[in-house]
């Protein structure tokens, strides 16, 4: 076994111990849902920074974004404006959501929707959308892990990679069960230290060996132009709208994914969220340079069929074996952190919003933590099946659909905090229209995120998720104007009185 494989194994075992030890961290017996699922809403600025960083910038992101740059050039860099504007947006919106959640005891977005609109069906729509968008996301974390494992030499054959994945996943499930959100919060410190180390080393070593950034951009341009599907390092004019609508739609969607909401609500104050919106862009900077590693792979002459292997291949070529082990560990642990948070977020939705048999207006008894814990196991098992027994393409397509779907809860969850006149029936109709439209557009463009909208002779390629949101808003807005809304009084009771 190579030294890199040994380093990888040691680091992964180390964080497992940490995951179990997290149950004893920072007081509070884990006997309520708020303790298990939200760490008791007690995390300060630093913990939240690591937790959200580990949550938003997943292993899959670190593999897929440079893979897209490697395969499709400039378009991949929509991730830069996306992760730039997500923060000024969250600064306003998520700070407010945190405040409402704290006041009214919400654990999920669907809790808010139920309270704000008094509609069981809208609550169910929001919760089911969240779960459907999260499952393939967890599966993709596993797929990211698998490509690293095979390259690292720790599990060279697909059977041994599967065995390793299964063991890592059972351990992940076990410490998520015992420690709840505290496990990923603690492990996130290790993950991010390793990621920053890896990227710093990559930037110190690789560009110099390839003749500097000027030469890298030049040879990346040549390689992209010569590909069977030619592209460029400078965004071409026909892709302008696709680029900005992808960035805009993704930014609006980022903070309404269940796992993001879980991390946001675990902060101890709205000020922690606001401060983090100024601090988290450091990860965006990191992501940009990771994306540029895709160009480094092109410049280094790395030619792989599966673009997801471009970055592992680059690390294996330029790093000494033991340090490649550190880099691979960063990616594997970078998959475990968000997978745990996603499982908790989806379990919260299941336990709090889906498995309720009570009338919508009755006062609800608190959810039993035990139920949520077992549901988290179930979610992880489901994602494992999705990742292992079904073709990876399916998870990727499904996750792409998930992105278009999750944005369809935006009107109810986010606009619901600001717009008094929204009617729950109108929102449900808008959601249904947006879901149908988004699904159709993604499927019709053979599972690409960009849909070419034909209007007469003109063609406007834009993000399917964005077009679907427009349909959703048009339906929800116009029906709200027609219907005599039922929920204004609830808005007055819940959403007025606090600043921004």
């Amino acid at each position, binding site marked *: 076994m190579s030294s890199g494989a040994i380093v990888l194994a040691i680091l992964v075992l180390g964080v497992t111990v940490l995951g179990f030890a997290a149950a004893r961290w920072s007081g509070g017996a884990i006997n309520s849902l708020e303790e298990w699922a939200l760490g008791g809403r007690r995390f300060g600025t630093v913990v939240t920074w690591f937790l959200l960083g580990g949550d938003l910038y997943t292993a899959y992101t670190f593999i897929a974004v440079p893979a897209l740059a490697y395969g499709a050039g400039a378009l991949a*860099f929509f991730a*830069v404006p996306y992760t730039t504007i997500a923060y000024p947006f969250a*600064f306003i919106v998520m700070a407010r959501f945190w405040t409402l959640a704290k006041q009214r005891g919400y654990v999920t977005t669907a809790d808010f929707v139920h309270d704000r609109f008094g509609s069981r069906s809208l609550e169910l729509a929001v919760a089911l959308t969240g779960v459907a968008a999260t499952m393939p996301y967890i599966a993709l974390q596993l797929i990211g892990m698998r490509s690293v494992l095979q390259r690292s030499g720790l599990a060279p054959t697909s059977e041994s990679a599967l065995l390793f994945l299964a063991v890592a996943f059972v351990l992940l499930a076990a410490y998520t069960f015992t420690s709840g959100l505290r496990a990923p919060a603690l492990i996130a410190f290790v993950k991010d230290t390793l990621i920053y180390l890896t990227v710093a080393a990559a930037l110190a070593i690789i560009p110099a060996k390839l003749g500097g950034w000027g*030469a890298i951009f030049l040879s990346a341009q040549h390689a992209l132009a010569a590909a069977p599907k030619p592209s460029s*390092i400078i*965004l071409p004019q026909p892709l302008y709208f696709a680029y900005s609508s992808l960035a805009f739609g993704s930014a609006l969607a980022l903070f309404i994914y269940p796992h993001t909401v879980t991390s946001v609500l675990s902060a101890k104050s709205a000020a922690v969220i606001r401060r983090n919106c100024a601090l988290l*862009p450091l990860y965006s900077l990191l992501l*940009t340079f990771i994306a540029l590693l895709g160009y480094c792979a092109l410049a280094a002459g790395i030619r792989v069929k599966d673009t997801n292997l471009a970055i592992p291949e680059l690390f294996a070529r330029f790093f000494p074996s033991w340090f490649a082990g550190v880099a691979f560990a960063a990616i594997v642990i970078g998959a475990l952190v968000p997978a745990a948070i996603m499982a908790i977020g989806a379990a919260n939705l299941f336990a709090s919003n889906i498995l309720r048999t009570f009338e919508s207006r009755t006062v609800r008894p608190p959810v039993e933590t035990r139920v949520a814990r077992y549901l988290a196991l179930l979610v992880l098992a489901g994602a494992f099946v999705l990742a292992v027994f079904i073709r990876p393409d399916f998870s990727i397509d499904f996750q792409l659909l998930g992105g278009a779907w999750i944005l369809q809860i935006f009107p109810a969850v986010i606009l619901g905090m600001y717009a008094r006149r929204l009617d729950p029936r109108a929102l449900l109709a808008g959601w249904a229209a947006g879901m149908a439209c988004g699904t159709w557009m993604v499927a019709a463009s053979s599972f690409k995120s960009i849909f070419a909208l034909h209007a007469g002779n003109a063609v406007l390629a834009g993000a399917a998720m964005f077009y679907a949101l427009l349909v959703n808003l048009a339906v929800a807005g116009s029906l709200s104007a027609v219907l005599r809304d039922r929920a204004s009084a609830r808005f007055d009771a819940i959403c007025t009185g606090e600043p921004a």
Partner: protein
Amino acid sequence: MNRRWWYWLLVIPFAATLVPPIYARMDPQLFGFPFFYWYQILWIALSAAIVFFVYAQTRGRGHE
């Protein structure tokens, strides 16, 4: 001045980064980086600075 006005500054990053015609070009280059890249990287930092500024100007009003 009403401190709420500061929130409007948060619109600037959207305007600066969501309009590719501004920056989808090769030149001027900086340290070997085409304009397309260093401009967007610069805006990560500028946007963070704007958010921090707005935070500093508005803190203490029911948020702390």
